[in-house]
Structures are given as structure tokens and as C-alpha cells.
């Protein structure tokens, strides 16, 4: 079983990001589970979402304490939070940042990938919708999620022109991270 933890702030589509991953894994013939842990329900408050992917039915309902991968949608959460706590050795960490990932202060032993998701969203989508970009980057860096399945999920949820622009941005992020793993 693979476990993924997503950190972000209310309004950034953290729960939806988890659902995209779970749906894409399921489309690839695996079992999947996605669920959120809200703080208080308001925009800007820290939100954690969890995804489990397995080749067997998933019964475990506890939160994820030792994730295989980490997705951080808002790098400001690194301040004062132990985001990499419990993270497995060699785990993939995908962070929304336009700066060098070395500046994030993440401990050694993880594969860190930075994606300028906010800039990319403003440029391609025209709005700061970053979760589709982050999920594209995760798919590119991990190689564990099929892009076609992701596209289908995004298109179902966001039909129309906005969704299509998000898919373009998602593809850009997917390609951007090829070979970018630290």
C-alpha cells in the first residue's frame, strides 16, 4: 500500500487533489481511498488530505503517519509545522515553489521537486488554481499515476474552457518535472 499526504490551506483544493489521485489510481485498476482532515473549516486554515492506494481493498481508516509521498501546496506551511514528520526514507516531496528547493530547509534523504504552480496557474489558467498543476507534477515525478486518467477526472469535474486550460497547465507541470528530482 502507498500512502500520500497532502498539505495546503483551505481553498487550495487539497481534498480535490486527493480525490484526483484516488480516482486516477482506481481507473488504473487499483483500490484507492481519499479523505481530508480539516482544522476549522475556513479559507486559509491548514488542511491535510490523505490518499491510500493498494492492490487490495482498503479498510484502514486512521490518518496517515508514515507517508510514502508528500505534496505541499503552500510552502509557507513549512514554517512552524513538521510537514516531513514520519515521511519514509527516499519519499517524494512535491512542493509549490518558484525558488530553489534547497531553500526550503527540508531534511536530507527525500526526493524533493519544486513546481512554480502559482505562477504557472496565473500564466496558463488565468486564475490561481494550483491543485491540478500539483497533481500533474506528482504524476510526472512519481511515475505512479496515469496522466490520461487524471485528465479524465479533471475534465469530469471541471467541464468547459477553464478545465481545458487546467489540463494544459497540468501537462506543462508533468513535463517540467521530468528529471528534476533532487
Amino acid at each position, binding site marked *: 500500500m502507498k500512502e500520500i499526504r497532502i498539505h495546503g490551506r483551505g481553498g487550495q483544493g487539497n481534498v480535490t487533489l486527493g480525490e484526483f489521485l484516488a480516482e486516477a489510481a482506481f481507473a488504473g485498476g487499483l483500490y484507492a481511498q481519499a479523505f481530508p482532515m480539516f482544522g476549522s473549516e475556513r479559507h486559509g486554515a491548514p488542511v491535510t488530505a490523505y490518499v491510500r492506494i493498494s492492490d487490495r481493498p482498503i479498510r484502514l*481508516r486512521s490518518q496517515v503517519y508514515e507517508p510514502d509521498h508528500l505534496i505541499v501546496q503552500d510552502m509557507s506551511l513549512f514554517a512552524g509545522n513538521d510537514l516531513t514528520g514520519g515521511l519514509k526514507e527516499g519519499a517524494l516531496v512535491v512542493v509549490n515553489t518558484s525558488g530553489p528547493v534547497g531553500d526550503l530547509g527540508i531534511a536530507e534523504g527525500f526526493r524533493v521537486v519544486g513546481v512554480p504552480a502559482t505562477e504557472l496557474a496565473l500564466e496558463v489558467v488565468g486564475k490561481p488554481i494550483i491543485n491540478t498543476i500539483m497533481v500533474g507534477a506528482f504524476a510526472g515525478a512519481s511515475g505512479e499515476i496515469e496522466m490520461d486518467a487524471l485528465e479524465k477526472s479533471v475534465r469530469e469535474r471541471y467541464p468547459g474552457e477553464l478545465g481545458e486550460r487546467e489540463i494544459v497547465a497540468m501537462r506543462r507541470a508533468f513535463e517540467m518535472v521530468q528529471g528534476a528530482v533532487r
Partner: protein
Amino acid sequence: MREMMEGSSAVAESVALCRPKVVCAYPITPQTHIVERLARLHAEGRLDAGYVLAESEFTAASVVLGASATGARAYTASSSQGLLLMTEVIFNIAGMRLPVVMTVANRAVSAPINIWNDQQDSMSLRDCGWIQMYAEDVQEACDMHLQAFRIAESLNIPVMVCMDGYILTHATEPVDLPSAGEADSYLPPFEPRFHLTPTDPMTLGAMAGPDAYMEVRMLLHRSMQQAAGTIRQAAVDFHEMFGRYAGAQLDTYHADDAEVLLVSMGSLLGTMKDAVDELREEGHPVGIVKVRTIRPFPRSELHDALHRARAVGVVEKDISLGLEGILCSEIRSAFCGAAETPGISSFVAGLGGRDIRKEQIKEIALGLLSDNTCRVEVTGLDHEVLWRAHEEE
């Protein structure tokens, strides 16, 4: 066909498949997504029902009471404080023998205010005369609604379908929903035994004095006690038609040769099953008894399922303050007068959304293997905080 769905959406779709004639609710976290989805289905013309927006849970319960009394299949949903605000009407719905079905998205009760999951809300209403069922996963929560309407309407007893808030309502996982035709063949249209109509006037919920009240209450009590067959048949027929069976009033997991049996209700059972698999691999004879209905209480079935064990650990997300976990007390009552009784211990856990880890379950089971003395424990507490508060007192 199985597809990925959020628990609330999947339950709303299942409720729509039950073809209620009246849906009335007031939104409350974590129930909100269920009624939002039903409202959308109604707006899109996919739910042919009266959808009534209420200004409070008290009204929502009153509307479904009235609707059900006119012979309409009626549905509502709530959580926590909302459920408690319904309480007066909830007793009336049961006393008037109206087969309303309600989803409870289980959540802690105030104070302190807390929006996260435990089962204190519905457990506090266990004596209101409703059948109470608890779902283990999203699939069971969906299936349970079809069964619930069938049970309610054949017994004229309302049914609460309880599903853990967030843990199930907000979980996205694979779900298999029946087609409309399949749902229709499992759940035929509601044919009320009695209903209010101007062409044949009658009174429902009339006053019953000391000369009649007890008999009326005993009729409901007896119907509850005799509901086992109906609940079982609903599960058996469902299995036959859809190939899924999650238990009738109970279900068991590795229980036959178990020296320690863990008992629980709802979504914790999933985590528990993973814990038991690991304990079995390590050679420990541990199993699980799942309680699916706390009302009617399956007393003799529980006795039969538990009596061979050395120790029983009841792990539950509620507490009767000043006593112990509620389900544990009731399970003790199943052994009243029995010659041989396992050590039955209460483990209160997960209040107000505190996470319950697989390791905690294993610890409880291993503790019971080495010592079956009856005890009351609260797991996952921060003892330092408690100690400081105690010192200040």
C-alpha cells in the same frame, strides 16, 4: 458498476434510489454534503420528491413526521446538535409508528463545540424507539439505506442509519450503486398501513392516559424485540439480489477460535480488521464481533458470539459520563445470570475526532490476552494535560 464516490454523494444517490416522496433537512457539518447532493438531484429533476428547506432541525423532523403521516416515504439527515434539537420530534415519530428513515452523520456533541466524529450523538438517542444501524464503510452505508426503508415500512418503526462523520461522509472510495430498476425490485413502493387523508379522517398521536399509555409503549417495545427476523431478511434478500452481505444485527471476523474478541460499531471496524490480521499473523487468537444494530439490541446473539472468549474488549466512540462506554454496559447485560462470563472491558476511544490508530487496537488486544480482568479504560489520552488540570482543581 463500481466507481469512486465521496461517501456523502454516494449516500445521497442511494437515498434517491429509494424514491422518497418528501426530503426535508437543515444542513449541519458533517451531514451537509448529503443534503446538498439531494437538493441538486431535485433541482436537476432526478429526484421526484418534495424538497423542503427547513429553518431548523426541529422543523425538518416535524416536516418528515407530517409527510410520513400522510403516507409519503420521508427522509431526513442530521448530526450532533442538529440531531439533539430534533429529539422531541424523534420520540414522536417512533411513538406514532411512522417509518421515517434518517441518516446520522455521527459527530461529537457540545460543549466544547467540536465538528469531528464520534458516536455520542446517536448513542444518546438509543432509547427513542428508532432502530439504529451503524455502517462500517461507504458501501455498507449506501446498501443500508435501501434495507432501512424496507425494515421501517414493514415494521412501522423509523430507522436511523448512522455513518461516521468525515471518516465515511467525506471519504472517497469505490462504491457499487444499484440501477434504478434493481433498487425498485428490492424496495417496492411504500404502502402505508394507515395514513391521514380527508376522505377517511382519523387521529394520529392522540393522548393516551394511565389506562392506555403503557400498552401503547409495550406494543412498540415488542415490535422492536421481534424485529430481528425482518432485519435478517432484509440483509439476506439484499445479499441474494446484489451479492453483498455485511451482517444482519451482528457480523464476525476471525471470531470462532478467538480468545480475545473486540467489539465495535461503524468505521473503526475497518482499522480493527487490519489490526486483527496482523495479530493473527503474529499468532495471537484475536477476533472481532461487529454490532450493526444497537436497537433492537441483539442480546442473545451477542451472548452466543462472545461467550467462548476469555476476554471481550468493547471499543467505542461514546461514553455514559460517570459510568463507562454505553455499548459495553449493554454487552455486560447480555451475560446477566450466565454461568460463564468472559472478562468484559470498556475502551472509550476517538472522542471528538481523536484519531484511532491500528497500533492502539493491537495494544488493547494484547493487553486483554495477558489480563482479562474487567476494566474501564480511555485510550489515546494526554495524561499530562489531565494531570495538570487535576492539580489546579
